[in-house]
């Protein structure tokens, strides 16, 4: 069942639409309660019937951090900008897991919710959006681990900490941008299911998580490298915690790429949306 929250006097006209459609993001606001419930469902259902429940959110990055610290920090002696290696890599793992988790869930969200899409009308954008928002809950939990580490290593962030929410927002928007593209493509082409994990893994290696951006040579290689928006996000995240020189170029590249991917993704999504129920 769907209600269209149209005003009494404005009749709803159903007819074929052609070409690119307006984004109508205002519609999302009308359906904000449904967005809340979908997000809440995603969070709630994820850890049902698992013994450790939400603690997985903490265990995963902590274990990765320990392994990286041993292999890359202790054995390979990778530079970590003068910051203790464990916290150096953990500060990158947090936004990375936010991004990759949100992206993976968003990418398959439409197909997984096909029973909704074929039975109920609502702005379809709510589905990948809820998947991304649900990732923020995990992020908030693992942020507490970071806090403990900061205290343990006696690192006091400066005024730059104010940039942390912005970095988080950028990671979320980047995940949403790619997620919107991939979820819409996935409805039509199930190839996306194979591409998605691979894509996430490729981006992982192309992000400065285990290593520092100092290892990347300047010039054209660096420009190419900066096209991965997570480079800018992670650098900004680290900067907000540890200070140092602001990652200006990386950040600009990340914002440009994110905006381009997100805007084109939203338009593509809106264009494909009308056939979702027929194709999915």
């Amino acid at each position: 069942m769907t209600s269209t929250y149209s005003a009494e006097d404005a009749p709803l006209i159903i007819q074929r639409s052609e070409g690119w459609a307006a984004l109508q993001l205002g519609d999302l606001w009308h359906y904000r309660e449904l967005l809340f419930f979908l997000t809440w469902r995603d969070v709630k259902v994820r850890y049902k019937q698992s013994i450790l429940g939400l603690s997985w959110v903490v265990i995963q990055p902590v274990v990765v951090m320990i392994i990286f610290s041993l292999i890359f920090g202790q054995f390979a002696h990778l530079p970590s900008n003068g910051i203790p290696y464990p916290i150096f890599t953990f500060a990158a793992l947090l936004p990375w897991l936010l991004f990759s988790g949100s992206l993976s869930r968003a990418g398959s969200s439409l197909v997984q919710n096909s029973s909704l899409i074929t039975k109920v009308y609502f702005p379809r954008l709510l589905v990948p959006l809820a998947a991304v928002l649900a990732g923020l809950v995990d992020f908030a939990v693992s942020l507490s681990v970071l806090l403990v580490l900061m205290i343990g290593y006696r690192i006091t962030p400066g005024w730059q900490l104010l940039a942390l929410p912005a970095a988080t927002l950028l990671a979320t928007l980047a995940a949403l941008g790619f997620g919107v593209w991939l979820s819409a493509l996935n409805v039509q082409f199930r190839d996306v299911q194979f591409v998605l994990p691979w894509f996430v893994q490729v981006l992982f290696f192309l992000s400065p998580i285990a290593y520092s951006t100092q290892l990347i040579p300047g010039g054209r290689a660096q420009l190419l490298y900066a096209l991965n928006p997570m480079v800018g996000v992670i650098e900004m995240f680290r900067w907000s915690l540890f200070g140092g020189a602001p990652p200006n170029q990386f950040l600009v590249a990340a914002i440009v790429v994110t905006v381009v991917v997100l805007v084109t993704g939203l338009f593509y999504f809106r264009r494909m949306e009308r056939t979702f129920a027929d194709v999915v």
Partner: protein
Amino acid sequence: MTYAIHVEGLGKRYRLGHRTEPYRTLRDEIAGRFKRRRPKEAKDDILWALRDLSFDVKEGEVLGVIGANGAGKSTLLKVLSRLTEPTEGRAILRGRVGSLLEVGTGFHPELTGRENIYLNGAMLGMRKAQIDRKFDEIVAFAETERFLDTPVKRYSSGMYVRLAFAVAAHLEPEILVVDEVLAVGDADFQRKCLGRMGSVAREGRTVLFVSHNMGAVKSLCTRAIVLRGGKLVADGTTDQAVAAYLGSGTASGAEGEIPDDVSRLGNGDALLRRVELRGPDGQPTDQLFLGQPFTVMAWFQARKGIDEVMVEIGISTIEGERVATVFNTDRLGEPYCLQEGLNQISCSFEVDLLPRDYVLDISVHRVSGATLDWVERALRFSALNVAADSGDHYRPAQVRGFVRPRTNWGGPR
């Protein structure tokens, strides 16, 4: 005149490939780009699920939509619910629309009854405040108070359906579009649901009610339209429309060639061409004496060799209530292998049908699930109130039930 729903020239075209293939891969799409250059594709692969449909529904009117499977009812609902866009024409809806194509949409098995009420309610377009207000009423209607905090995966199927319907029943749209969701639950609950639908109708809301169940249509609707092959074939009072629908069996009896333009569903790899009902003498008939065995013969035209095939024969009353369903694979029967060309299938029944008019619904599927063809009301026949030798009568004047089981009695004589 104030209308709540105005439909004009509505049409919906499907490319058959889209409908039958579960999904397309990138490779198919790339291959398709090249294929499309060839002008051939055109006719075969296109299906108009709705064509040139026009009608109005007045405010407060309860309109029934009837038709066989594949007649376009579901497509009409999907278009009016904004799930899919029409290919041509348009529909104008005045007022808040609520459409109910399924009960329990969005129910999550891991969530509790309470949580699912909120989730489902929001999905159906209710505000949280509205759900809060109606919560107790919903729970009382569903009769599941004790299990509110149990995950619904632990519910019995009856409880699940009751809860799902209860949420839907407490929506308050101005226009309600309902599919055959009433065909769920036990008889008591069905009656309760019908009652609830009736009171919704009496409250002056506009209702579009799609159903196979002529009884429900007759009791709820003031007017009805009949769809066949995506087109409107009758529009009038409920009695007129039901009569038009019942009279529109694709074949009247005994033996029936199935015309090409009959309403059918399926990918068309095999098509039902002809059906016969044969009595014990092997001759085609459209009347069965009480207690007489009979055989259904069906001919399918296959486009190519197809293995792992199930044939399904349904016997329904002429009002559309299913009496029995049989498959050739019942009791571990082997699936059939259709050869390219015409295939004959026979199925003999030993069942005493009680006196009334019946229709045969015949469909053919792959064991894996794909439907090749599905024709409802393919053949019509009557069961008589008397045995062939007139020695056996079914006594009660008004028939209750559908079959007379073979029984052995004990008692004083």
